[in-house]
């Protein structure tokens, strides 16, 4: 336990000492929020859309860049190599990464919801704690996906390409930046297979409709996020590499798809249901 606590405490300190972390976790999404909230706060739906967009931006950024790219960086800089000679396993390092991301992100969500409430008169969700739990599940699921990408990418260049391949489609096709109502035909089908869609739908339902986490669609989304976390963390632990010299086979990249399997099932289920 002392190892876990020491790693988490250190990770938090290190994260808060980096200007990039402060900028991308707090300032950048807040700038985004203020800009769009000022432009689009005419209806509660529009404001909820802006809040959801700002949170999704943060969740995906934290998952793919804060978790994935940072893990690759630590391997490329030979930092993990120093840990390798100690008796610790990859588990505390991965747990530390996920927990730190959560600790750093939760204040941002609270600040965002309070700003939306006090500055733009957005009604606070009826089930605030459940919403925070749901967002936390999303954050941890996407951080575990980031760690899977880090574990299958052999170089920073490769990792950046894989991250971009996931980050932008998720941002654009999940309903976070382009409203779901704009997706027609094939785009609607694709939308249902995008993992971030379930995060966005769940948040919208809990913020706008004041739905609870235990409504059917929401708990199914939560379940998919939990399964992704479990599968993603297991894959990331199994494929964890301490040194940049330890290369992984190209075929191992399919593990990312395995980690995304719950959302493929969800997409299929929604598609068949309609």
């Amino acid at each position, binding site marked *: 336990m*002392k*190892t876990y*606590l*020491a*790693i988490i405490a*250190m990770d938090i*300190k*290190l994260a808060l*000492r*980096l200007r990039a972390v402060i900028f991308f976790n707090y300032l950048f999404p807040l700038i985004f929020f203020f800009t769009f909230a000022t432009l689009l706060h005419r209806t509660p739906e529009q404001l909820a859309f802006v809040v959801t967009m700002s949170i999704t931006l943060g969740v995906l950024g934290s998952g793919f860049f804060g978790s994935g790219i940072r893990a690759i960086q*630590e391997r490329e*800089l*030979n*930092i993990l*190599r*120093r*840990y*390798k*000679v*100690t*008796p*610790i*396993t990859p588990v505390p390092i991965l747990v530390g990464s996920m927990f730190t991301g959560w600790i750093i992100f939760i204040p941002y969500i609270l600040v965002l919801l309070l700003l939306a409430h006090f500055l733009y008169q957005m009604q606070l969700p009826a089930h605030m704690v459940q919403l925070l739990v749901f967002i936390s599940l999303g954050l941890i699921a996407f951080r575990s996906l980031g760690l899977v990408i880090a574990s299958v990418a052999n170089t920073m260049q490769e990792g950046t390409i894989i991250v971009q391949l996931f980050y932008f489609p998720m941002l654009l096709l999940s309903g976070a930046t382009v409203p779901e109502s704009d997706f027609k035909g094939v785009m609607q089908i694709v939308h249902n297979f995008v993992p971030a869609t379930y995060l966005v739908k769940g948040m919208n339902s809990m913020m706008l409709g004041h739905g609870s986490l235990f409504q059917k669609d929401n708990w199914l989304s939560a379940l998919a996020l939990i399964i992704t976390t479990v599968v993603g963390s297991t894959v990331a632990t199994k494929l964890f590499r301490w040194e940049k010299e330890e290369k992984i086979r190209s075929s191992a990249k399919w593990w990312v798809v395995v980690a995304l399997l719950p959302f493929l099932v969800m997409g299929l289920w929604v598609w068949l249901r309609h």
Partner: protein
Amino acid sequence: MSAEPVIQVQSLQKSYGKVEAVKGIDFQVGQGEVFGLLGPNGAGKTSTIEILEGLRPRTSGEATVLGFDPDRQKQQLKDRIGVCLQATNLPAKIRVQEALELFGSFYSRSLSSEQLLNRLQLWEKRAAYYETLSGGQKQRLALALALVNDPQLLFLDEPTTGLDPQIRLEIHKLIEEMKGENRTVVLTTHYIEEAERLCDRVAIIDEGKIVAMGTPRELQQKSRMQSRIDIVTAQVLNGNALPQWPDALENSLAEDGRSLTVYSSRPARTLFEIMKWLDHQSLQLEDVHLKRPTLEDVFVELTGKKLRD
């Protein structure tokens, strides 16, 4: 060497695909010994050391370190040893004391960070970020991290490579202190003088094989190369009147007629005879030097390579 070796290696072999990096080597290291692995780049010394640290699996052969099998008991072994690797880093924004406390938390026992900071002369730098440290300070911190669990066995993989001579001397002093505390040290190095100064025994490793092993002095004595005696006299010598001294193989007189060089297979005896001769001839001795073959000479003789090839 004590009765129970700290490290025992038998027929150790390591292959990477078709490349055989370590070709069946045997050695033992005793408690309190500083054991050096000398060899050029790619000789197999880092592979050997990393197998013993539990970082890489061996292909075949036997290895026991502190009674543990490095392949099967990695965690227990890592808890008991200290390691200073080549080319490692810490996060840029970690402070020196924080790094020691963080790494200390990974072990079942650890020394206090204050104790280590004082010992490694890092107290003044305890609040400094890692990114602001000089190369020597980073290396001292690497050694402090290797000592954080108070290990009885340390692996130091080229601990002074790339450091300036002053810092190298400081690191040498630290290694001598570790030796004074009866810790066992396995050291790989490119620097011959480092091995000569610090190691009780060295193994010269080339192309995956140990080509010679013993104390630096034993290796020097095994060399087929001769020692060289340089003498300078106050008076000019007659080159045609020089006697054949016992065990002297060759001699040459410089143009000034005063500087004489004699090669000998038994330099102490030859030198004694030269002194007697000078005295008998009433010649005044101004300077004398005896140069034995260095470990570098032995290395070149055995491997046909320079150590830094």
